[in-house]
C-alpha cells in the first residue's frame, strides 16, 4: 500500500502515455487512407489515380485509323517508323474530336535540321547533311516530302 501511495505520481505519468497512445490509435484509424497497404506499403488508389491521367499523344496506330493514305505513302519510305506526332506534336485531342484541333504543319527548317544536321557525334550510317551547304537556302520539302523523303518520289505523293 505504501508503495502505491509513494509512487502514485509515477502511475499518473504512465497513465498519460496510455491515454496518448489510445488517442493516437483512434486518430490513426480515421486518418490513414483506406487503400493503404492494399498492394504494399503505399496507397493502393495511387496506382489507379496515376493510370487515369490524361493521354496527350495519340500514338501512330490511332492516326493510321483515319489517315490511311498517309500511311500508304509513309510505309514505303525511310520515315516509316517515325511517329506522326514526332513532327506534328501531341494530337490526342485531335483524335478525339478532329474538328477541335487542327494540327499545324511544322517549319521544316527547324524540324528537319534537328535530326539531319551533320555532326561528328551522330552515327556515321545516319543520313545527315550540312543545312547551309546542302540546299542553298531552298526549303527541305521542295525536294523531300516529309512523309516519304526519297527524292525520286518527290512531287508524286503530295
Amino acid at each position, binding site marked *: 500500500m505504501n508503495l502505491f501511495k509513494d509512487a502514485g505520481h509515477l502511475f499518473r505519468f504512465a497513465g498519460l502515455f496510455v491515454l496518448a497512445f489510445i488517442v493516437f490509435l483512434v486518430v490513426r484509424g480515421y486518418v490513414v487512407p483506406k487503400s493503404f497497404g492494399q498492394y504494399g506499403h503505399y496507397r493502393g488508389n495511387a496506382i*489507379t489515380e496515376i493510370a487515369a491521367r490524361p493521354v496527350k499523344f495519340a500514338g501512330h496506330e490511332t492516326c493510321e485509323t483515319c489517315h490511311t493514305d498517309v500511311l500508304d505513302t509513309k510505309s514505303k519510305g525511310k520515315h516509316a517508323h517515325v511517329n506522326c506526332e514526332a513532327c506534328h506534336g501531341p494530337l490526342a485531342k485531335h483524335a478525339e474530336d478532329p474538328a477541335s484541333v487542327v494540327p499545324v504543319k511544322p517549319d521544316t527548317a527547324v524540324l528537319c535540321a534537328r535530326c539531319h544536321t551533320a*555532326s561528328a557525334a551522330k552515327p556515321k550510317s545516319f543520313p545527315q547533311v550540312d543545312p547551309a551547304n546542302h540546299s542553298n537556302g531552298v526549303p527541305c520539302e521542295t525536294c523531300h516530302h516529309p512523309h516519304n523523303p526519297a527524292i525520286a518520289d518527290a512531287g508524286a505523293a503530295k
Partner: protein
Amino acid sequence: MNLSRRHFLVLMPAAAIAWKSVLAGTPEQASNYKISEHWWGMLIDIPKCIGCGNCVRACQAENDVPDGYFRTWVERYHVEDENMTNPQVISPDGGKEGFPIATEDAGKYFFVPKMCNHCSDSPCTQVCPVGATFVTPDGVVLVDPKYCLGCAYCVQACPYGCRYIHPDKKVADKCSLCYHRITKGLTTACCENCPTGARQLVDLKNPKDPIHEFLKTHSVQVLKPQMATGAKAYYNGLDGSVR
C-alpha cells in the same frame, strides 16, 4: 488529306469509339489490363540514338514536366581514344533541343538517353519514410503525389539522378514509365516519338515481346551495376566510360 467523304463518315465514328476505349479511365475499367501479367522495363539502343531530343520534348509534353527539370534527358559523350575515365559529357538543357554540332573528329561520340531505371530493388523506395514512392506489382516505380512529404530523401538515394522535387507541387517527381499509357496498351511517349527506335518499351513477362527476345540474344548492360539496384533500363552498346 485525300479521304473521300464516304470514307470519312465511316472511319470517324469507328475511330472515336476505338479512341474512347483507349482513353478509358482506370486499369480495371480498361478491361484487358491485368496488373500481375506484366513486368515492365525499357531497352535503350545506343548505336541508334541520334541525339535529336524528341524523347525529352515528348516526355515534357505528355507529363507536364516543368522547365529545368527532367524525367528523361540525353547526354552526349566524347571519349578520346583509350581515356575511358575522363569522358567529356554535355547535356544542354537535357538535350531537349538537340545538341550543338560536334566538330572534333578524334575519339568516339555517342548519345546516352537517361531515365528512371525502374529498379526492382529500388533504393529510393527503401528510403521513403512514409510509403509515398513504391514499386507497383507490374514493376513500375511511381510517386504518390498526394502522400509525398517532399523531404527529398529519395532524390538523395537515387544513384542515377533521375528524381527531382517538383517546383510547384513540392513533391518528388520522376519518370513514371508513362504508366497512364502502358496500362492502356500504348507505349511510352518517349518510345512513341523516337524516330530511330533507340528506345523501346519491353514487357519482361511477355515471352512474345520482340524486345524481350532482343534482350535474351544480345549483350546488354545496366547503369552502375555495382549498386545492385535491379535496374530495368537495359542498354545495348553501352560504352565503359558511361557514368
